[in-house]
């Protein structure tokens, strides 16, 4: 049987890749995808802990995370479309309306 720590290491790796994506990429869409990857990495540890603790609460939490992720993507992509309509770009370095 694959032990718990193997899943936790994989989850940490995926989360770190997501953090690197958010920190280095300048395309707003890829930043959003990296956020999705981080949410998924956390979901993986939830399910792994649920399996090894003989409990199903972790799996129920994954449902809530998925709901929030879906809502976040819908609103986030709508914001990206609105920004693209005004600024003609999705590069977050070129979007600085709030700087005044």
């Amino acid at each position, binding site marked *: *049987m*694959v*032990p*718990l*720590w*193997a*899943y*936790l*290491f*994989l989850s*940490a*790796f*995926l989360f*770190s*890749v997501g953090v*690197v*994506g958010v920190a*280095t990429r*300048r*395309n707003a*869409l*890829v930043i*959003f*995808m*990296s956020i*999705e*990857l981080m949410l*998924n990495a956390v979901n*993986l540890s939830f*399910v*792994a802990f649920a*399996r*090894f*603790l*003989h*409990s*199903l*609460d972790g*799996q*129920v939490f*994954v*449902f*809530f995370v998925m*709901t*929030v*992720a*879906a*809502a*976040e*993507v*819908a*609103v986030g*992509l*709508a914001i*990206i*479309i609105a920004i*693209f*309509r005004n600024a003609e770009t*999705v*590069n977050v370095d070129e979007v600085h309306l709030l700087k005044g």
Partner: protein
Amino acid sequence: MEWVLFLILALLAGAAAVGMVLQRSPIYSALCLILALFAQGGLYILLHAELIAAVHILVYAGAIMVLFLFVIMLLDLRPDDQPPVQFNRVEVLLGLVLAGVLLAELALGVGPRIILGPQGSYDLETLRTVGNTQAVGRILFREYLIPFELTSVILLAAMVGAMVLAKRKLE
């Protein structure tokens, strides 16, 4: 056997995730992420979370990533407009140090000698007789009924918000 499957799926998920960050074109990034999500669905099945695996594939690969691809095609982003992903030496060094710290923390905190807390009543035998979907549904609609109902408010707010934000302003 389980180790072999785990290693294949884990390598696939990890490689696809790294590919997503390194790809210049957003559409390749999205396809890499879909591959990573499918591999993760396989890992859920390996963890005996069949319902989660099915919902994961449906919601992420079926709904969220299709939305991403729609937006990418709607915005018509050319790969040559995208600046290439590059790292300088200081960033790489800092990243390696941080990765080492995280690895050490994991090895010390949740490594092979992890001590788990009290265990619940849903072991594999129980799940095999009750069924994973039934067991999750029973918990979801009994102990987590109010949070479950509250998620409908989140979805409604997201739906209204997305429509208001993406709507063209009427002059």
